[in-house]
């Protein structure tokens, strides 16, 4: 029981993919204009993550190290393609609103990063719950951001009008700038909370992906580290 709850708590709180590890910024900004989209993306990514973590954990001993990354990408792309067609068939409205970000789940740092950092080195059972934890953490964070943006930008939640017809929403919140500003401010608030608690700044936030052209080093997400290492 403890490995399950430990992995899940890790994914949701301790190493939350968006607010702590600062991964997958692209879909975070793009799909959080409404809670429905955010939940849809979160669940699609979670399903992909679970599938890929399990398979990669199963094949981790047979894949040669040199072609490890293309092999992982192939597994992930297969699941993404399946999900893409399932969504296109069964939930076409979600497929339309998520647009190209469904196939872009393939290069989502969380999925490749977890495959590399955890599933490639651990057994199937912990990898499964690692995937569930990370996926839930991602979905919850996305839904929270989506709720803020949709509430302020459209006066509704999940499509249901909350403030009544006289509310003039700040439409900017559901447009591009609102995404950047909401994520920036929320990240700062959570960062302040963790500074108050631990008296240390989250290095990943203060020095995001800083790429040093001299040494080719970057403090980026685990997914790219394979290409950053020179």
């Amino acid at each position, binding site marked *: 029981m403890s490995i399950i709850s430990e992995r899940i708590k890790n994914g949701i709180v301790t190493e939350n993919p968006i607010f702590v590890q600062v991964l997958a910024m692209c879909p975070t900004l793009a799909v959080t204009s409404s809670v429905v989209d955010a939940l849809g993306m979160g669940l699609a990514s979670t399903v992909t993550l679970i599938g890929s973590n399990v398979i990669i954990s199963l094949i981790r001993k047979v894949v040669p190290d040199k072609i490890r990354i293309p092999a992982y990408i192939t597994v992930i*792309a297969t699941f993404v393609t399946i999900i893409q067609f399932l969504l296109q068939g069964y939930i076409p409205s979600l497929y339309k609103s998520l647009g190209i970000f469904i196939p872009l789940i393939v290069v989502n740092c969380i999925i490749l990063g977890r495959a590399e950092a955890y599933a490639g080195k651990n057994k199937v059972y912990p990898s499964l719950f690692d995937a569930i934890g990370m996926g839930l953490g991602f979905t919850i964070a996305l839904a929270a951001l989506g709720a803020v943006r949709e509430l302020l930008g459209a006066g509704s939640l999940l499509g249901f009008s909350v403030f009544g017809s006289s509310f003039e929403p700040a439409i900017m919140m559901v447009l591009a700038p609102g995404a950047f500003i909401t*994520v920036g401010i929320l990240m700062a608030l959570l960062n302040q909370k963790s500074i108050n608690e631990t008296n240390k700044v989250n290095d990943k936030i203060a020095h995001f992906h800083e790429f040093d052209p001299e040494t080719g080093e970057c403090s980026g997400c685990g997914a790219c580290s394979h290409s950053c290492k020179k």
Partner: protein
Amino acid sequence: MGLFSIFISSFLVNNYVLAKFLGICSFLGVSKKTETAKGMGLAVIFVMILSSLMTSIVYKILVLLHVTFLSTLAFVLVIASLVQFVEMVVKKTQPALHKALGIFLPLITTNCAVLGMALINLQEGYTIMDGLANALGAGLGFMLAIVLLSGLRERMEDNDNMPLALKGLPISLVTAGLMSIAFLGFSGLGGL
């Protein structure tokens, strides 16, 4: 849409970074200094143009073989191998060019901007020429956005009055948001 319309659309009106949210990781990461931002921008333009050509050709092959459902997988693998290959060639043949932009190439292999551009080419049914216009606009738009942000960040670097919680990523995000508002002003340009 004419070639120029496609170009302006990808460059300004629907800027890949500030309106489409593609390539955000590298946009926020490599924008600390203007020098590195310029190098990154050039590398992205280079990769986008090559990838646009390669993925258009690969898609035609997939259509011939009736396996278009493999396009996502094929595009990712093609872009990744193309970039690796180009990096190796540039390293061997043009060491000066490699120092200027080759070092950024590994960062672009799983960059969502390049894959996103290839998928948009597919989605909009662009011809090879249309795809190239899209790629050039996307690359230049990325370079414009990242160079602008790096200029702003360089000035914010020495600000001691900034709250600790905002330092680094949060303030960059808010800045990008303000830039995004500015770029909203381009909507409707050229009838787009």
